């Protein structure tokens, strides 16, 4: 399986942002363990507003799957595991 590249955009360290980070890390860990290399970058748009503009971010938190294609996005605190996997077009191993 190809390497996974995820970007999680947050707007400050809000409770929802912290939950989203935790939930996402847990979902990936449970789905792939150490079998699939995963690059997860957390971007705070308050520090880098131009990135929010470039990516046309409307709501946060939002996770964007950059690789492998197709690019997919899921908004919210990522509390629903199944929905996140479907939304990002990921199969469990």
């Amino acid at each position, binding site marked *: 399986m190809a390497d996974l590249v995820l970007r999680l*955009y947050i*707007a*400050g360290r*809000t*409770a*929802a942002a912290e*939950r989203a980070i935790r939930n996402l890390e847990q979902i990936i860990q449970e789905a792939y363990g150490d079998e699939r290399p995963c690059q997860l970058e957390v971007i705070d*748009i*308050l520090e880098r*507003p*131009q990135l*929010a*503009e470039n990516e*046309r*971010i*409307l*709501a*946060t*938190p*939002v996770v964007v799957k950059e690789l492998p294609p197709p690019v*997919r*996005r*899921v*908004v*919210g*605190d*990522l*509390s*629903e595991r199944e*929905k*996140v996997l*479907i*939304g990002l077009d990921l199969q469990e191993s």
Partner: protein
Amino acid sequence: MVPSTESSTVARRARQDGRGQTANPAATTGIAGLDFVLEGGLPAGQPTLLRGGPGTGKTAIALTFFCSGLQRGEPSVLVTFDESPEALIRHAEALGFPLRRLIDEGAGRLLDMRPDRSELVTGQVVELTALLTRIGHALDQLGAKRLVVDAIDGMDESFGGGNSLRAELTRVFDWMRERDATTLITAGEHSDFAGRFGLEDYIADCVILLKQEVRDRRMTRLLRVLKRRGGGHGTNEFPFLLDENGVFLAPVTGARLEARPSDDRHTTGIAGLDRMLGDGGPYRGSAVMFSGQSGTGKTSFAAAFAAAACDAGDKVLYLSFEESTAELARNQRSVGLDLERHMAPGGSGRLILEPLLAVELGWEEHLLRVMQAAQAHRPAVLVLDPASALSDRADDRLGKEMLLRLFYMLKRDGVTVVATELLPDHSEGVSRMDVSSIIDVWIKLRRDEESGQLRRLLNVVKARGLPTSDRVCEFRLGYDGVTIDANRAEVAGG
């Protein structure tokens, strides 16, 4: 940021009108008539909501605010939730604003906030901080104080419209006030977005409603200011035009007469009529009306007046509601009047003939087109032939009021108005237009068929400030134009 002299003048006036309190300064909308209705413009540094159904002209007004600001050199940001930036650029260009160039020059920015339909939402909490961050970033980079948010109801789709959205929206509007940006937000009627989230009642400082009304199968666009915090506003509905010339809203209420009375006089172009008015025609800037039944030669009088004014070097705008340009020129040629010598190309160009055929338009639109033409050409003399075409079609008193306002507006600008009025045959010579209060010189024409021969008669009903003949005179329409035989007076009334 240097406001134009014009906008700062209206802003100052708005402040003076603010009943004792310090009214906020106003930001011009780029639409003179709307600024007038808003007593200067949008409340500066505050959010205004512009609401209306599809096709009512929300985006056109928003784009006018945006583009006219850019043209004055004020950096501005536009956020779109519905149309693509490309579609908005084309829309603005159709209204006559070179938006693509203005954006390339760097003073304006379009932020694309259309929802990504493939995006999935999980969990309850959605924050609008990103949106504010993007807007704030753009405002900061440009140093912009003007913001347009087009189709904010598009958020409904992006954010699922949950309860948290209301709190978030309140936060957005508070943030806009803190940013001190004059903000115009448009919202459609889609699932009552503005009502559900209390935009009108609680959040916006100024609310403008747009709607379309179809009467007699004719569509009229209407605008109403619902509220304006910290300033007065008109509560009437105002008809407006939306076409390739942009948005045109006539400054119709609060008309005050400011015309500088002139001692200069026109000639009517008919020697006998000048004699009846004390050897000289009406004063410049006055309103002249020729009333008569059909076939009394009203148009010939108006055309003779127009040609004489052109001869004297004046610019004349002749609005013909019944005859095309070619018909008018031909028909007047047949009674010895050459209008073409003043028409471009070939002539002096001082006579501008515009046919405005009355069939297609609602009367509000009609009057607005007259005002628009008058403002575009700035004539010394404006001919309305027949002006009754404007008022006859109004189904209520509004038509007459609008016509009066048109006369007021023209007189205020010092334009001489020459109107003809078609009297129905059964009217017995009584004017139905009810505008006599504003008419300075009123000439009545009629036919007399009783003595077995058609005779045309005329008399001066009134002529303010002029010594006038109280006689009824006979006149002829011949190959050499209108001839008045002032000696052959007829005393008996008809």
